[in-house]
């Protein structure tokens, strides 16, 4: 079976067509940036994009995404026309958001999807879209400011992640 991940067509065995995409990405495709935190959709660490929308990869399977575009944290920067980091990644560095860093790939993917849909999110938009992404280190205040900065820095044309 063919799936498209970060702009590349990748083959996965039919036998794992209904396995969690999280483990397929990590163990079969070597894309370990997408993290395991719970396996049941309650932490957000495994967030990826499917056609630009935030999706929990532990709750998705390869067969669900055939014919769709998957972007992982490793491919996020390539979804912007400019070289270098995606504006959300850039804002994350500027605000020095990560502490342990484990949740941050999921946070960034959720934030990028939020901004693609809503270029100027309010606090309550952020709360609604991001509260499924847990951070035990408590980096939330910085996540909020980094999202707002990324919103300011994102020219409208780059807001179409993986489209």
């Amino acid at each position, binding site marked *: 079976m063919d799936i498209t991940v970060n702009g590349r067509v990748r083959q996965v065995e039919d036998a*794992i067509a209904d*396995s*969690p995409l999280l*483990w*397929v990405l*990590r*163990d*079969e495709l*070597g*894309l*370990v*940036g*997408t*993290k*395991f*935190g*719970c*396996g*049941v959709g*309650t*932490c957000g*660490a495994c967030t990826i994009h499917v056609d630009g929308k935030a999706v929990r990869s532990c709750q998705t399977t390869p067969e669900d995404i055939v014919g769709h575009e998957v972007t*992982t*944290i*490793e491919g*996020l*920067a390539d979804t912007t026309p400019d070289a270098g*980091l995606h504006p959300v*990644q850039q804002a*994350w*560095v500027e605000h*020095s958001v*990560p*502490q*342990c*860093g*484990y*949740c*941050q*790939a999921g946070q*960034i993917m959720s934030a990028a999807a939020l901004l693609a849909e809503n270029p100027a999110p309010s606090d309550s938009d*952020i*709360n*609604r879209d*991001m*509260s*499924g*992404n*847990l*951070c*035990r*280190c*408590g*980096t*939330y*205040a*910085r*996540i*909020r400011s980094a999202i707002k900065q990324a919103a300011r820095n994102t020219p409208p044309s780059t807001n179409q992640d993986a489209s």
Partner: protein
Amino acid sequence: MPNVLSRRTFLSRSGWTATGLTIAATVSGCSLVPALPSRNELTETDAFTWLQLKPDGRFLFCSPRQEIGQGISSTLKLVIARELGVELEQVEVIAPDTSLIAQAKSTVGSESIKDFLEPVTEISQIMSETLRARAAQQLGTTPVEVAFTGREFVSSNGSRLSLSELAAGTPILLDPSEAPTATKPLQPKPASHLPSSVPTARIADIVTGAPLFAGDIQLPGLAHGAFIRPPQLGATLSETSFDAIPQDQILARYFDGERAGLVAPTQTSLIEALDLVEASWTTAAAADQDAINTSLALVEPVGELEHIVFETSGRPNEQADIDLSISIPFAAHAAIEPRAAVARWNDKVDPTLEIWTGTQDAFYVRSHIAKHFGLSEKEVIVYSQRVGGGFGSRTLCSVELEAALLAKEARRPVKVQWSRPDEFQEGFHRPPSRHRIRASANEVGMLTDWSHGFKSGHVIFTSAAMPRWMQAVTSFASDPGTARGAHLPYAAHRAEISFSDVRMPVKTGPWRGLGAAPNNFSIETAIDQLASNKGLDPLIFRLANLPPEHKRLSACLEQVAKNADWQGRSTTQTSARGIACGIYKSVTYVAVIADVDIDQESGAFQVTRLTCAHDCGRVINPDQVRAQIEGNLIWGLGMVKSEELSVKQGRLSADYLGDYQIPTIADAPAISIELIEPENAAPVGAGEAAIVASGAAIANAVAAFTGQPITELPIRLL
């Protein structure tokens, strides 16, 4: 009448001051003694192995402190670059494997800056002087005639020697016997070429998803393993059958009479295979929350509890203005990274066994595993990976041993990735505690009597860390982790603080701040209540009762009051404010004001702002210190708002994060922090301080609103 020693007298006479160190030293040499967490003090010689000049002219720092998200790698990097007079990019910081540096003590207790700043500063200065002396020799001149540009040495006649030329193909390490002694006072050098704050190490890798954590390790032939878990705490395995699993789905099975595990080619096939294992279990008396509650009940007078933290010669009056009983539940670390480890056995010796793991104590993992397999420590190497949230949870050895056992059986490298239920059921937790505080103040608002008795499960001498016989021995000792933060910062005429440790049927252990978070929560709840009882402003009451030796705490209170524009509890129909403060490990001072919105009807509340003043002495890397404080404030919020674990039907009550609620972004308030740096104050820890005040400040705001003190966590208003 025979001269019977009471347990207390026995303890003090036998010198069991009850630190981990004392116990370890007392019983060392006995082969039954398990490996204990690394607490050894540093020697100067150890420090010499940390820093070297590499042949390419860059410096390598093998950090003795594990990066667990506290930003220590980048902070020490800043210090080294400053002392050496080089750019940040010229210093590479690695988490060394256990073969590279001498055993370092575990990364716990927010000690990295307090204990390591000085030796790191010193070795950097010695390195700098040694290199200058060598360069001078090669340039045919004296050290004073040599200038250093950050990349090369230049003699007064203009001849030049770069760092890589100096190294001439071999790394330069310091030799303790030859090195000059650093004579300069350890003051920061002006370093205008360096930024004033540096972000956490490898931030670019974090935001792009590069492999950093133990679970990210890929090795040729790597398989995936797991152990079968008991359905209830303390259940023992009586029979296991793997027969239902298709043969091609399983690479190895493990059974040692007590536990069973299996190894599968992929994580997904492993999860499927685990479902097919048939196991029968014998449950002894199942753990039970009611029994735990009973064991914690404070039935005896405070004066008869086992361990005295503090007492004045005059005993506090039994008749008190306030009498509070406070109940604090088990709490989980709930790091977002569930524990993971990879193990590989090699045919060759040295190393026989390699382990990749994220741990706060790689040396403890090494000795624990070496001991288990009868290997020498040299035969085991532990490669430290970044830790996806420590908070005290990564201080013991668990998943690492599991990976080693399964890898041996499977004869190939094995990764064990704990599931979320494993984290809750197999990990260890903050013990529950019960506190009774009676206190009085006189008519002018001075604290006269303070009596605080508490019972808690163990923090350091925990069943998670030691075999049964050792638990029995240590049951006599007072657990320093339980006692942490129980001292009263305020002056009272008569005071008595004592506690008993209670053995829990649940694994307990260090949680951020150890006993300080629950103990100071209780203290600050009672102080606030006493102020209310006397009709006094809680800020003024605190300031009036803090003795001069805690003027740094008073300064934090005054600053936070100013920054938050404190005008009292300011209770409205929908909101209130609360204040609290504390001293962590006698060195870090913190005060917090919480603004809380409350919906009377639903009982829901939202913390809208936390204002914090924090004094951890001189600050080396302000942005990372702020990050630590932000995290602490949120931990305090979670502790009072939603976090709770109990025993239900013989298991911990949570298997997934939905069953144990940590704060989300929707809970997170606006935060403002002021760092206070008194002149000449030594730099100390910031990783566990603010948690002691933030929870109480929030609870005190809620109490101001309802008129009732919060005596049970988490807060439930309806």
